[in-house]
């Protein structure tokens, strides 16, 4: 039996029994039941599985669980605080920046990572940050708008 891997997800400590090379995505979804993070391709091409690993947006399907050990991980389930949506979640909801919404978790996490670096991104910077996230329903313009709303909310909150 392999040594358990200690994970810190949304501030909670977990111990995973999975083999060390198991993609973090599978541990999140199948072992820990955090199914808000989605499988879209398993190849790092679609961004559906995006999580924050030590604050950076990463494709959890491409990260062996052992590489995530001990580092803070944020998934979509960890953004809401005390019943209050994260500004990015609120902006996506307000702008209705989704259709089937299967890409939404990944889009939100990529956007959160962007806004942590840059609270006033240009359209080009948003587009660049989300280039690795696919939306097959074609909701892209609203997603860009939502990120801008969220950025504004984040800036106002900081004041």
């Amino acid at each position, binding site marked *: 039996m392999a040594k358990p891997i200690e994970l810190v997800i949304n501030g909670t400590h977990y111990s995973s029994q*999975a*083999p060390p090379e*198991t993609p973090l995505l*599978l541990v999140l*979804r*199948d*072992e820990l*039941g*955090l*199914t*808000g*993070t*989605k*499988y*879209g*391709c*398993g*190849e790092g*091409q*679609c961004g*559906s599985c995006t999580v924050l690993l030590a604050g950076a947006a990463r494709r959890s399907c491409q990260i062996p669980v052992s590489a995530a050990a001990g580092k803070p991980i944020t*998934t*979509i*389930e960890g*953004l*809401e605080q005390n019943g209050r*949506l994260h500004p990015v*979640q*609120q902006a*996506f*909801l307000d702008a*209705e920046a*989704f*259709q*089937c*919404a*299967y*890409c*939404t*978790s990944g889009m*939100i996490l990529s956007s959160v990572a962007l806004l942590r670096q840059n609270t006033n991104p240009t359209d080009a910077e*948003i*587009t*660049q940050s*989300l*280039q690795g*996230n*696919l*939306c*097959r*329903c*074609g*909701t*892209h*313009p*609203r997603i*860009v708008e939502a990120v801008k709303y969220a950025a504004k909310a984040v800036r106002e909150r900081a004041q």
Partner: protein
Amino acid sequence: MNRIREKISEKSPAQFPHVMMEPERYELSAGSIHQFALHRRAFFKLMGAGVAVFAVAKDALTLQETAPGPRIQPPELPNEISAWLHIGEDGSVTAFTGKVEVGQNVRTSLSQTVADELRVPLSTVTLVMGDTELTPFDMGTFGSRTTPTMGPQLRRVSAAARDLLVGIAAKEWNVPAEGLKAANAKVSDPASGRTASYAQLAHGKALAQSLPGEDPVTPPPEWTVAGKDAPKAEGRAFVTGKHQYASDLRPSGGYIGKVLRPPAFGATLSSLDDTAAKALPETVVVRDGNFVGVAAPSEHQAQRSLAALRAQWNEPSTAASQISNRELFTYLKQNASEKHDERGRKQAGSIEEGLASAAHRLNATYTVAYIAHAPLEPRAAVAEWKDGKLTVWTGTQRPFGVRTELAATFHVPEASVHVLVPDTGAAYGGKHTGDAAVEAARLARAAGRPVKVVWSREEEFTWAYFRPAGVIEVKSGMAADGKLTAWEFHNYHSGSSGIETPYSVPNVHTEYHSVPLILRCGSYRGLAATANHFARETHMDELASAANVDPLEFRLKNLSDARLRAVLEAVAKSVGWPRQKTKEGQGFGIAGGHEKGSYVATFAEVAVDRGSGAVRVVRLVTAFECGAIVNPNGLRNQVVGANIQGLGGALFEAIEFAKGRIKNPHFASYRVPRFHDLPEIEAILIDRKDLAPAGAGETPIMAVAPAIGNAIFDASGVRLRSLPLVPIGLQRA
């Protein structure tokens, strides 16, 4: 098992006598109409006391008479029910429909429809969708039919429920019902000032009523909840990750299932060595005909088991199985059926005479590639057998069709199969079949526990069905005054949807020619209307160019359809057509059409770099009219979304294949639109409150490709007649 499935797929798709099924819906093989198994007593037991109303489908009796197989006749409720609704003792409203939510936002728009007609706040309405035991039979969520058919049915049910509540109040107050008013979930009597909430009126009742097909319903100008923006139903669950798609379900004690795929389409299993796989702990291996699958407690174990299988396959050697993209179009043309297919066939006047009298004549051939739907949530299903009964949760557009497929595959009555469809991670016409459901159910039966099957992206790109490729030949003639004199249009394989020209032509011949399948094909958003619009609207542009007339002016000159003129004119007005070019490489194009009761026109601006061949779509403006708009915000999402999705098929999407193998089954090699590809997009929505609402999920995609192709011609002088237009940029002519 596979033998049975083959048998099913051999059935003619045109089994619904009242619907002329489009030929390109190759995947549809459903046959029977089903009876719901829910009795009145059971219904109230499930829902609690209150008031219930059932709607009878207008054509249900015809369907009933032609339905094969044994009939179960529930004694207390009519069979031909299309929708029903329940008002609980707490005033909560639950409406039931067999339609499903796949991102097109009908959970919201149908809820608005119910709230509007019942006169209740939207927040009190819950929709139960796509559950074969709770919702009435429905053929499927396709063909842009939810809004025009389910909308009115739910309106009739809601109107009848309202009347029922008014009737209860009238009886209790001993006043005529005519003087009472229903509004804001209350019945009131203006004469006496008395009011009673729907909750009070439903209290202690177990009243059920069915109704005839035609009840007066509220006309669009009087709508209060419908016709306005409404936020997506249960939107918060999607931004918090709480919504569970079929692929997210984790039944207790469940296994993960994997299927061993053949190396090529049509390959059959010649031998299997599963010794190593069976030796693995907690592993279930199933071989049934050509089906080989495994199930194990985790994804990791299931993958290891799958990898341990050693299989030998026989690949087919027929001519069709050997071809690749290169020979595809020649093959399609050479192997077309000689028999006339009546679907989409039209002949009037004489093409010869029309051409003889023409001042300009044009022949051109257009092609469209196979493309994939690539919904972000791949096919997924969780199946569980309990006491001989099968329950399957799956993402499909046809819950009842999948029930039929499962019942036939496993030789069980349909009453023993329960299919539930959680709101699904998109479909675009691609989830009409129950592939993952059948696979999960087969493995679950062997494992004796629930099994989940989620297709990998590669499986999704390889084993799901594709939008059919096709060849379209057009021959036309135009008089010196710019009027069309002849129009001959042949579509090989791609399909007959949208094949008829909306332009006025005295001599016309349109025909679809079927060709045996090479790859698995089926429905895709808009069906062949996208291909047929591409060919037609490109050809119209070519004619205009040959006669040196403005392409919009030329279209309008040949067009009497006022609704199509209106969308073209709306776009023209918005962009200031005809436009003067202001920079090198700039080009403008326009295209339009109608399908399934809605009308579209799209303007495209492109920037072409003749040096590098790079083509950039700078701007798309689409005018869309689908009668009265139910939810403008949701509609805008669909129209813009269809434009962006259409960008992929227009510019670069194509399935590459050879000898039954898909060569680009990954997002890295099959390019779909990403943020960098986004043009500026504008949707002009025309709200026709004088017209009944039509569906809107499909038609807005149809004019994108020809508008872009026409713009590329305007920019470069290069006429492109194949979709995708510029997979590797614009080549030198």
